[in-house]
Every structure is written in C-alpha cells, then in structure tokens.
C-alpha cells in the first residue's frame, strides 16, 4: 500500500478529519505537501514531513517510510512484469489475507486476479494491497 493510500486510511481511522482540520494542524506549506502525497500516484513526500504526519496520527515514522517505499506505480510495475512473465503474484491485503494468482489485467483502480485453481476472477482494489511478492 502506497503512502498515499495509507494516509487516506489513517485519515479515515482517525474520524476523517477534513482538509480544513488538517490546515489547522499543519503549516500552509506542509498542508499542501500532505494533500499532494494523498493525491499523487508517485511519491512526493519529504523526510521532513513524515515525522509531523506520524506525530499527528500517533504512528511510528517507520510505518510511513515503509509505505513510502511501496508506491502504486511500483505495484503496477510488479503486476505488469508478472503478467509479461506469466508469474504468480502474492498480494497481501489489508484484511490480512494473501491472495495467490495470475494477474489477468490491471488498471488504475484494481487488479483482475485469477486465483490458482479457480476460473473466475477476483477483483482486488489496489489500495487494499499492503505488500506483494512474485513467484519469480
């Protein structure tokens, strides 16, 4: 799960503070960066802002750094590569489950995964994927 998705998740877990609420907590510059991190698919965060966000949500900075290293584009590349090589991917989800299968398609929002031994696709929302591995 990317930092972008994780921030949205943390925001929801903390009662869904509005943008106006966040503006009162962070400086103008930091608020702009915060929103950019949430909105962009690539990583635009800085080392300076992570401790501030971590303090606000009461989570370790390392947690945010971990998600920062797993951008949506990185997941897209992983799935794309697996499709090209016919590899099996293992998607670890926010629900605690790990799904094993062949990606059949992917787009901006979801991955169509054919689980091993099953015919029907399972449509995994990309923001639900915490981490991923490949059989390769």
């Amino acid at each position, binding site marked *: 799960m990317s930092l972008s998705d994780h921030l949205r998740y943390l925001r929801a877990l903390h009662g869904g503070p509005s943008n106006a609420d966040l503006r009162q907590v962070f400086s103008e510059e930091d608020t702009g960066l915060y929103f950019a991190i949430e909105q962009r698919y690539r990583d635009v965060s800085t080392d300076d802002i992570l401790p501030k966000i971590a303090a606000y949500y009461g989570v370790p900075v390392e947690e945010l750094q971990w998600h920062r290293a797993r951008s949506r584009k990185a997941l897209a590349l992983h799935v794309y590569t697996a499709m090209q090589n016919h590899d099996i991917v293992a998607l670890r989800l926010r629900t605690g489950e790990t799904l094993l299968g062949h990606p059949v398609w992917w787009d901006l929002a979801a991955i169509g995964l054919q689980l091993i031994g099953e015919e029907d696709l399972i*449509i995994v929302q990309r923001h639900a994927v915490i981490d991923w591995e490949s059989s390769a």
Partner: protein
Amino acid sequence: MAEDLWNIRERKQMSVAQLALRSGLSQDLIDDYEAGKPLTLAHRLKLAKILYVNDYDIKLQSAPRPKREKPTPPPEQSRPAKLAKEPAPRPMPEPKPAPPARQGQIDFLKGLAQHLGILPQQMEDEIGKPLSELTAPEATHWIRTFQVRVPPQSTAPETKPEGYRSKRAHLPEGIDLFEANYLLEAQQAQAVLVVKMFNGEEFNGTLAGFGPYTLTLQSGGGSEATLSKLAIAYYRRERSAA
C-alpha cells in the same frame, strides 16, 4: 497542485519549439498560453500528454513568467544633484557574435527534416550552410521556417476499431477500463457479487449501479447498499452452486 505551463515545460527540459512540434500547436499559441492566455480544455489535455503530467496539473491560466529583476534606480529626489544631470552618452558596445546553435536546435532541425521527408543535406542546401555552422538565432529562424511546413495532423475522422477507447499517454494502463468492463458485464448478467470490505464484512447482491468511487448492490430483498470503493478490499462473482 496545478503549475504554470512554462514551469512544467522548463522542468521537463523541453523548448517551446519541441512542445509545439509534439503537440501540434503553434509556438505562438504556446507562448500566449505561457503568458497568461486561458488554455482551452482540449489543448490542456494535449499538452498534458506531451508533458507526461495530468491535465489538471497544468493551470488553466498560467501566471506570466517572472522577469529577471533589474536593479531599480533610486528615486529621483534622493539622487545627488550632480547625478541628476544628463548622463554622458555611452560608447556603443561592440556587437557580440551570435552564439553557435545549440545541439538541441540542430537535433530538432534534423527531426524536422525527417518529418518533412527530406534529407538533412537537402535542408542544408536550402539554408545555405551546414547545420553545424548555424548560429543560435539562425537555427531559431530555420526551425520556425521549416516547422510551418510540417503538414497538420489529418482532420479526417480516423477509422478506429469498434470499442476503441483512447488511453492517456502518461499512464501505462487505461484509467479504469478493465474494472468498468467487468462491472458492466456483471451488471448486465445480473450476477451476484460478493464484496469483501477492509474490516472483513461481506456484502452480497446484484449490481444496481457503479461509479469510479462506489458500487451499489441490491440484495435479494430489494434493499440497496452503496459501498465506497475505498473501503472495499476485493469482490468477485458468487460461486455457482455445483
């Protein structure tokens, strides 16, 4: 956060001429846009593709590029009296020789030659000297001269296969085409979907509607539940009873 067009273009290390050639817009128009003329939505989309950004990353109206600050002279009344006199005319500086054309300009001219279907040699013949001997202002002049000869993109409607949908150039994938198709098929087939939420909760039902951010399921009893995709982990068609 949207940025000024000129700012993005310079960050991408692209000249106005290159942007013009790739986007099919004229250099003058791009200059106007960079100077503050409001962008049309179609042109913004076109420029965004070339610049590999989202269309909404480009401001609809760019602020003109700040000019380099010149030292401001002190106000008249604060100047010493002797400085207020007519200054002596300065000797005219020797005109500086024009700098040689940049490699980027030469490459661009070669690219234009390719676009026009002529050899660089033919281009040099018309210019009257080798490309490598051009000065920067000469190169600018010839780029403009040749650029207007590039035929505009055909206005005839292209024949595209049925079901064709264009993709944004800056994304390797369709926006949400695959998922939308899956949902559409499921809706038309009135298939029962099983949706698993982040918190482990499951919802079953036929798809009454869907959008980029929500799915609406209709249960067997007729009640509907609209689920935010942000809270959905995955979904699938209900396994048919064997």
